[in-house]
């Protein structure tokens, strides 16, 4: 199942292998496509770097692109930790953004910021969460596979938005009325004047806090534990009396809500209204972000930064090669990481065993997993019996 991309144990170089492999493959693919256009790959990379990390404005734009990716990446990651693949982040993001925009636009002007901003965020979370909850209920009650349901919902949301837009959008435009001033999130340029002109805003801080919150939720709370158990071993979860359907629905609701919050960056921090087609695949990129981060919330930040750089870099090189090249690259990264981590996960037990054997006999895991059971359950993370910190099992640790 799509549940586990956790590679939390094992030597660092082995865990890093999938990323190196993905980066090499993506760069090779990009070079190949650049050649197709008769452009020099080196010049393309130089332009990409100059347009992103080469200037303060570029950095600001990268951070702006990163913000919603953190949200959708977290959304996909949380669901995947519970063994669910939420492909619907795109639709949930759109619904959440529209909810935030409407909430912000129809609040009385006198409402202070302290109330208006949280209200809009709540609206975004609830709207996205409702879509997620619907998916969860479909899975729970109707046993419909969440991947198909979320994909269908993406299409339905897109079609319905065209219909709803007819009533909500301002005349002769494809956007809603702007939100009231107190619902706007401040630009970071007001604190750091160097960022002037770039759209990066307080939503970035919000997204970072969200990542920390989700990490704490998964690690330190009962719900987070239940969620991980359901994701890693549904049978064991059911045997211990966890209500799987309920927990999966909660996970999908949370996932949808997180994706919905991703709309805040654009609606409350940049344009101040909902605009048709604003999402531009950010929901789908969230899948790439989560897969690259192995569903670890804090790694999602770095992973989002990587794809944020690519997204902004795509605009920078658009004159040379079409920016859709970036979509190809993110797909290549997903494919490379997904297959390489499956291989590495298979290698890990063997490697750990070898290392334990020549390291110190006393700290060998109490129960070795045979090759056979590893093959049958290769979709599950390494078993619990493996010692907590494999890295410490070294000659030095033994002395």
């Amino acid at each position, binding site marked *: *199942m*799509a549940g586990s*991309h956790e590679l939390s144990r094992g030597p660092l170089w082995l865990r890093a292998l999938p990323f190196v492999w993905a980066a090499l493959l993506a760069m090779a693919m990009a070079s190949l*496509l650049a050649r*197709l*256009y008769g452009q020099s790959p080196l010049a393309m990379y130089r332009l990409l770097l100059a347009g992103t990390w080469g200037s303060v404005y570029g950095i600001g734009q990268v951070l702006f692109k990163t913000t919603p990716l953190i949200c959708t990446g977290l959304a996909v990651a949380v669901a995947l930790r519970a063994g669910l*693949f939420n*492909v619907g982040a795109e639709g949930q993001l759109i619904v959440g953004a529209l909810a935030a925009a409407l909430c912000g636009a129809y609040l009385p002007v006198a409402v202070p910021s302290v109330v208006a901003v949280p209200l809009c965020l709540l609206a975004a979370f609830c709207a996205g969460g409702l879509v997620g909850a619907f998916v969860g209920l*479909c899975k729970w*009650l*109707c*046993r*419909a*596979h969440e*991947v*198909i*349901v979320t*994909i*269908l*919902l993406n*299409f*339905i949301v897109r*079609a*319905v938005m*065209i*219909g709803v837009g*007819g009533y909500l959008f301002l005349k002769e435009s494809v956007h809603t009325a702007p939100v009231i001033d107190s619902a706007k999130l401040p630009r970071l340029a007001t604190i750091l004047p160097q960022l002037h002109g770039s759209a990066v805003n307080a939503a970035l801080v919000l997204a970072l806090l969200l990542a920390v919150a989700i990490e704490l939720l998964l690690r330190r709370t009962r719900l987070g534990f239940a969620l991980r158990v359901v994701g890693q071993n549904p049978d064991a979860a059911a045997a211990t009396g966890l209500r799987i359907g309920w927990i999966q629905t909660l996970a999908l609701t949370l996932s949808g809500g997180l994706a919905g919050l991703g709309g805040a960056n654009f609606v409350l921090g940049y344009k101040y209204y909902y605009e048709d087609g604003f999402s531009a695949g950010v929901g*789908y990129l969230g*899948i*790439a972000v989560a*897969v690259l981060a192995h569903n670890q919330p804090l790694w999602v930040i770095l992973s989002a930064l990587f794809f944020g750089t690519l997204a902004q870099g795509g605009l920078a090189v658009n004159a040379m*090669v*079409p920016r*859709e*090249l*970036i*979509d*190809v*690259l*993110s*797909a*290549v990264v*997903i*494919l490379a990481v*997904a*297959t*390489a981590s*499956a*291989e590495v996960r*298979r290698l890990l037990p063997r490697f750990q065993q070898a290392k334990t054997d020549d390291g110190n006999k006393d700290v060998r895991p109490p129960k070795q997993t045979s090759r056979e059971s590893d*093959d*049958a359950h*290769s*979709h599950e993370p390494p078993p619990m019996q493996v010692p907590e910190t494999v890295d410490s099992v070294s000659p030095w640790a033994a002395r």
Partner: protein
Amino acid sequence: MDSLALVGLLWAILRISVPYVMAALGGTVCERAGVINIALEGILLIAALGTALGAPHGAALALVCGLAAGVITALLYGLLVVVFRGDQIVCGVAIFMLADGLSRVLLKVQFGSTSNSPRLDALVGSGPLWLLAVTFSSVILLHGLIYHSVLGLRLRAVGDKPAAAQALSVSVLSVRMWAVALSGLLTAIGGVYLVFEQRQFVALMSGGRGFLALAAMIFGGWRPLWGAAAALLFATAEASGIFLQARGLLIPNWILQSVPYVLTLLTLMLRGLLGKTHSAAPLSLGIPRL
């Protein structure tokens, strides 16, 4: 309703159903071997792209290019999930993203636009008719292959009990790879048909048909005949909407567009409520094992 209009409607249903039916068949053959195939949508799209890229050199080459593109994509998918045992759902979705990105990039190289190709005049003729015939014979052929041949027995064994199949010296790996390749070929016919019908390539022109076909396949209980029937049902929904609109009934466009998706969602929910979804699925679906 006069009989002429009814015949027109039936004809429209048949024409619209081709990509749905072919992708549903492709999904069936792949999943009966135990490999989940969310990549159907990507294969449809890539096959359509291949057809469009080959079209300036004549209809025959367009057909070959389209089929080859679909099979190559399927083989890539097979390599990733069967040989390297990557996660089937994650890789399937990534193949779709790859198809979307690649189609826009190559469209720009070939035709100078990232959204659509110009009209492909080389594709006039009776191509769609032939493909229609191929489609409905494939349904019968695949039914025979899966249920009444040694190959089909091996295919189902590999999908249900790979360990047992292996014990009888059936190579799980090669059966699955052949199934994925055949799935690519079948689905590619649907993609080729799309371009032959519309005589143009438009970005994202598969429009979720691969995903809908997957739902049709599940609705049909992983059986080719029933999967094709479900695909026909979806095509009927799409065709009736267009038909009613053409006859002057004012249905807003967005409702018309969402009808196939909503209908698919409802059928999936209904089937789940009736409670037979899981018993029908191949036992080892989605479990990589060599």
